[in-house]
């Protein structure tokens, strides 16, 4: 018997089932098709502004930094400011997100490098799919627009997040993701990012900047009225 058949039949023997029982099949079908939300967490069940404030507070307590911007057009200047204030070269790795690409970078001295990161970049910028208020978590989805390597290889990870893309909890974020990608279909990678990389492996003292970015900076675009 193949390993697969063997393992499945051993599971069935241990559970005392055949795998054909209608109620079990229905249970599984229903669980997957309805994906019940489970217990909801009170802290994120807030009016809109409360969720936005909670996101900021939680992201900062996870040691991310955050700047609020009045418009998307303000991104290049904010990035230039950030690079300058951290004494970084005026160079930035980005993917091919038309929203980022379409900005007026020419008004800054920043050198744009397009495509996935090769591990030589000091700073990179991606556009987040969402932000989850309950833990200040950014949700990044892999694509040519926003390559995964830009989330992990540069020393300084910068992320643009639309205030309107902030949800209270993970479940609401999943609901939006299903709307965008279709039920049961995932982007190749969904990265939840909560603060910059860190390790506690030496004497259980938390140090920032393990293998991923040493700093995480969020540029949050305010909702237009």
């Amino acid at each position, binding site marked *: 018997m193949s390993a697969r058949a063997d393992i499945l039949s051993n599971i069935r023997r241990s559970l005392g089932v055949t795998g054909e029982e209608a109620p079990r099949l229905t249970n599984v079908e229903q669980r997957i098709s309805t*994906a019940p939300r*489970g217990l909801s967490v009170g802290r994120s069940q807030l009016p809109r502004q409360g969720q936005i404030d909670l996101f900021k507070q939680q992201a900062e307590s996870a040691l991310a930094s955050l700047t609020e911007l009045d418009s998307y057009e303000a991104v290049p200047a904010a990035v230039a400011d950030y690079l300058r204030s951290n004494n970084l070269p005026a160079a930035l790795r980005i993917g091919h997100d038309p929203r980022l690409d379409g900005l007026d970078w020419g008004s800054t001295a920043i050198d744009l490098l397009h495509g996935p990161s090769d591990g030589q970049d000091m700073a990179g910028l991606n556009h987040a799919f969402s932000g989850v208020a309950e833990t200040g978590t950014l949700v990044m989805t892999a694509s040519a627009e926003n390559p995964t390597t830009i989330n992990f290889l540069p020393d300084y990870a910068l992320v643009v997040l639309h205030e309107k893309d902030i949800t209270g909890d993970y479940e609401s974020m999943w609901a939006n993701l299903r709307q965008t990608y279709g039920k049961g279909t995932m982007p190749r990678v969904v990265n939840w990012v909560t603060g910059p990389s860190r390790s506690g492996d030496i004497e259980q003292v938390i140090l920032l900047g393990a293998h991923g970015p040493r700093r995480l900076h969020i540029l949050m675009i305010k909702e237009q009225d």
Partner: protein
Amino acid sequence: MTAHPTTSRFKDNAHEALGDDQLQKAMLNVRAGFIDKRAAVAAKLPEFEALRDSARDIKNHTLAHLDLYLERYEQKVIEAGGHVHWARTAEEARQIIIDLCQKSDAKIVTKGKSMISEEIALNAALSKAGITPVETDLGEYIIQLRDEAPSHIIAPAVHLNASQVESDFRRVHTHLDADRDLQEPVQLLTEARQVLRDRFLSADIGITGANFLVAETGSSIIVTNEGNGDLTQTLPKTHIVIASIEKLVPTLEDVSQILRVLARSATGQEMSVYTTFSTGPRRATDVDGPENYHVVLLDNGRSSMLGTDFQDMLRCIRCGACMNHCPVYHAVGGHAYGWVYPGPMGAVLTPTLLGVDKAGHLPNASTFCGRCESVCPVRIPLPKMMRHWREAEFSRHLTPATQRFGLAFWAFFAKRPALYKNLTPWLMSLMHLLGRDKGYLRALPLASGWTDSRDFPTPQGGTFQSLYRKQKSNGRAA
């Protein structure tokens, strides 16, 4: 190393551990690093206890339908362009991975932290096949340099102090300036980051574990703080996931519930830095990510745990809270347990995986204080299961007669005045260590341990505590 478990020598291992000053110093970090942080972060979430129930129920539901969820998961992985390989045993899993490596002519394999990889002793097998495994989690990297097994499931190098890490780095990183300053832990971290960055970029294959597998979407999930797992799986041409069958969860909602208790129980964080959901290989629209995506599903005895007294153990999400709160673990460290899974969860799991003949001592390495169960995010009744093992061990007559009466770890000595006298110093130091935390001695319910095994003949000589007191008043001890 992991290929040669020393679990059967638990008592000797424990004895050595108690005399190891470096280890004893390092073990103090467990308490400082984990216990208070967990308590604080749990207190900040009013729903924490209810979420533990929810996590338990999700795992129970999944285990009761495991065959169906596995089939569903496999189908979704294939739809996403990935491959699923089934392995009955550690040997089969190793062979599948080595075949995959050889097919793509891999020389260097980077690895994210995976307890399953430790369980199947993958590194030794890779090395033997001429493939260089490079551990990339800082703690795993350090212990790989030392050729040691992890001593904790989420903090593999918790038994070490910074000065030991410094001397290992000086010994191995000989291409770097010999006069460099490595006094500060952050300098050690920076050095590891630099050394491993090259490895990430040059690896042919990346192997990671999985904290969860999602049946709904065919996704594998890794949870890390360093980002090493993501570099491991994103940069090479091929990503291999090695996961055991009980890692399944039905939906994204289900895993979100469990993630709310995982980081909080493990490191006392609200959420770990990186939680990554991977579904299949690079798509036509991608510019990075692996071109090949393989999942190796390992059984290794788990399917036989279903329907038994040990089924509940399959709920374990490997958070480490039980060992962080275990007085015996604090006192002897993880290596004394002799294999990859230490602490209370190891005391239950190791006999199942290695056999009760090799690991039958472990369930006795407990004071039955119940702290492990009180913090376990999926409410595994660990003390009860350790008792199951002791009963199983008893009925199988696998232990020396003197140990059958339960509480072997303690009673063994209490029953043998001569041996006891010789071993008193190490027992005393154990007691001393247990007593280092205020209230621990009080919390050591040796008495309840006795009561629980009352159906066994009572050993002569009274309880350990009464002997201890007698010894003390006779002035012979301490």
